[in-house]
């Protein structure tokens, strides 16, 4: 007779663990899975989101996505914004964490100052930077007698830079804290041994620190990328997708399509494509970075 893989005690423990997961699974199902299923259902219809009349289109909305130049335009900006933000914020957060983990004065205060912006709502951040770029920074530049154009939200060629600065200003502190925790978990023995072997600071950083904090790098990279791909709220108050449509992200476009232009079914279809893209990006990043992980 084949013996069960687990003893009855182990099975009991597993059942207890599973029962602890039930509440979060219920919430996940109600809050994430069911809305995604409903979204897919609505994407098969022509519906304005208000009336009880829904006209079945099948995959018609999905076909329209490929015919709509504004979808491609929104995706292009979203991808560029995502790359710019995830690179800038990631590198910035790691460098700041490295600096604030070293022996400098007023470390705690400096960490707090860097962290505070992420406590603001993105709506507030958008308001603040809109004022900064339209009045405050140009006023300072003018007072100094300089001719630098800092009205970054006013031109399609600079709006990406302006939003990247605003977004990184807000979120770098949060990711810095994750890197700080990771840096503080690296055993000092490795650095001491490396110093004895004659490794310089750069070598210690790239050969010891980076491999050992790879889980944090994965977390931050995936989080920054998927977060940037879903950017919406900062745009509401900063640029409203403008000038024209120059800073229209895909989520902002979905909002306009679904709620302003009352094309709820079409907006749902674009949302489903966004979900698929986000899944692909997250899985690809996880697979890429997993190989680079070093287990202690």
């Amino acid at each position, binding site marked *: 007779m084949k013996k069960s893989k687990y003893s009855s005690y182990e099975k009991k423990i597993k059942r207890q663990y599973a029962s602890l997961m039930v509440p979060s699974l219920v919430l996940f199902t109600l809050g994430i899975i069911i809305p995604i299923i409903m979204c897919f259902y609505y994407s098969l219809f022509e519906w304005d989101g208000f009336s009880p009349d829904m006209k079945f289109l099948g995959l018609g909305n999905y076909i329209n996505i490929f015919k709509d130049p504004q979808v491609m335009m929104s995706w292009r900006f979203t991808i560029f914004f995502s790359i710019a933000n995830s690179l800038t914020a990631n590198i910035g957060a790691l460098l700041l964490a490295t600096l604030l983990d070293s022996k400098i004065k007023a470390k705690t205060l400096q960490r707090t100052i860097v962290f505070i912006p992420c406590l603001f709502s993105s709506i507030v951040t958008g308001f603040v930077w809109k004022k900064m770029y*339209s009045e405050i920074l140009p006023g300072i530049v003018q007072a100094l007698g300089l001719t630098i154009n800092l009205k970054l939200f*006013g031109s399609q060629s600079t709006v990406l830079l302006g939003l990247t600065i605003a977004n990184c200003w807000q979120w770098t502190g949060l990711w810095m804290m994750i890197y700080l925790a990771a840096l503080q978990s690296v055993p000092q023995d490795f650095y001491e041994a490396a110093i004895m072997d004659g490794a310089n600071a750069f070598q210690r950083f790239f050969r010891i620190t980076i491999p050992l904090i790879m889980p944090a790098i994965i977390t931050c990279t995936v989080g920054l990328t998927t977060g940037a791909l879903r950017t919406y709220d900062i745009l509401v108050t900063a640029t*409203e997708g403008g000038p024209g449509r120059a800073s229209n992200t895909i989520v902002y476009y979905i909002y306009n399509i679904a709620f302003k232009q009352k094309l709820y079914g079409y907006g749902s279809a674009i949302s489903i494509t966004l979900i698929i893209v986000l899944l692909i990006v997250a899985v690809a990043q996880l697979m890429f970075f997993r190989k680079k992980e070093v287990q202690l």
Partner: protein
Amino acid sequence: MKKSKMLLVVMSMAMGLAACGSVFAGAAETEAAAAGYSVDEPVTLKVLFCQGPTEAGLEDQIDEAVQAVYPNISCDYEIITWEDLPGKLQQYMQSGMPDIVVAKSQDANNFAEYNIWADLSDTSYIHNVFDSALWGVTIDDKILGMPYIGSYGGVYYNKTIFSDLGLEVPKTYDDLEKVCETLKENDITPFATHYLDGWFHGWELAIAGGGELMSASETWGDEFHDGKVTTSDEAFQNALKAMDMIHKYTFDDCYSVEQSTCDARFVKGEAAMAFDMSGVAATYMELDPDLDFGLFPFPTSKGDGCLNMEPNATFFKSASTENDEACDAFLSVIASPEFAGQWSQYVGEASLIKDADSFQTPAQPDIDAYSEQGLTRDQNMITNQLPYNEFWDPTSSDFTEYINGNITLDEVTKRAQERADVCGTSK
């Protein structure tokens, strides 16, 4: 003797204090008595309030006025911006509508087909509103909202600059071009604009462009929907030319500038004109009480431009409210001339309630003159046929792409044509 005299004094003081009470108690009570509403049980009305920047804090004044007359009515406010209204209404249509919604008059037409607004035709307070303002909220002979504030949109101009340079108010595009060239020769930028505010471009196109379309035909939007006119026709092309002209004669950094900078430029005389809504008038007066400014309609090709009157803050009662009597009682207080006058003074715009102490600006004589000549137009005439969110807003974004060199004017025209299905009052 002393004690009785003291008692008399105290009683007189008490009566005096009671008479001073709330400013609204006396007049609004009269109004309420005439209206004949009774609210005997405590009730909390849910109010969805689309607020602009000048309306912040009005909910406290509403509470004070309403409770002075109907102590049993309290209000639970949800404050949003008008841009968020469609999403909110979508949510509430599924989960239960608020009792009162304060939005814009164009929302009567925007949401009429979903039957969410109550018919106010038979209420007593609706007749406090100027008859001319009720046109835009009357759908299929039902008055679906109570317009409250009138926002006059047109070209605000610096009368001193115009007078010094001998300029006259332009009526056609040629006149406007001459005025702009004269201003430029005198190192004055003709137009102050603020395209960093996303709504502004769409509004400008709706009013300037829409005015040109209405000049061609007052049913242009319906004809467009029915395929009788197209965006390639002269009227729409002239509408685009109007926008081109404003862009040609405004500041280079117009897309980096928001309302406050635009207002400052106008008040300081850096720009001679500002095409905007009447909410700016109060700002101009605050920045420079001595500024002499006027208002004229944006020109058209035929020279028959009209001042745009947007019935802005508009009160709607939910068709599914369970507090019908309380809602009517609430609205009867709002519609009293005394409270309407206070609201008008607070937001710095004209009241649409008869006999209200309406906010006055230096441009009022111009508004009155154009009204007497029949040269004002209810904005709903434009937006009921050509809806803002589905037509003007995306078309203005297309126009900005043209300004940025991404697409041609032909492409703007073509994209606008593709929106014919969403236009027309009977779509």
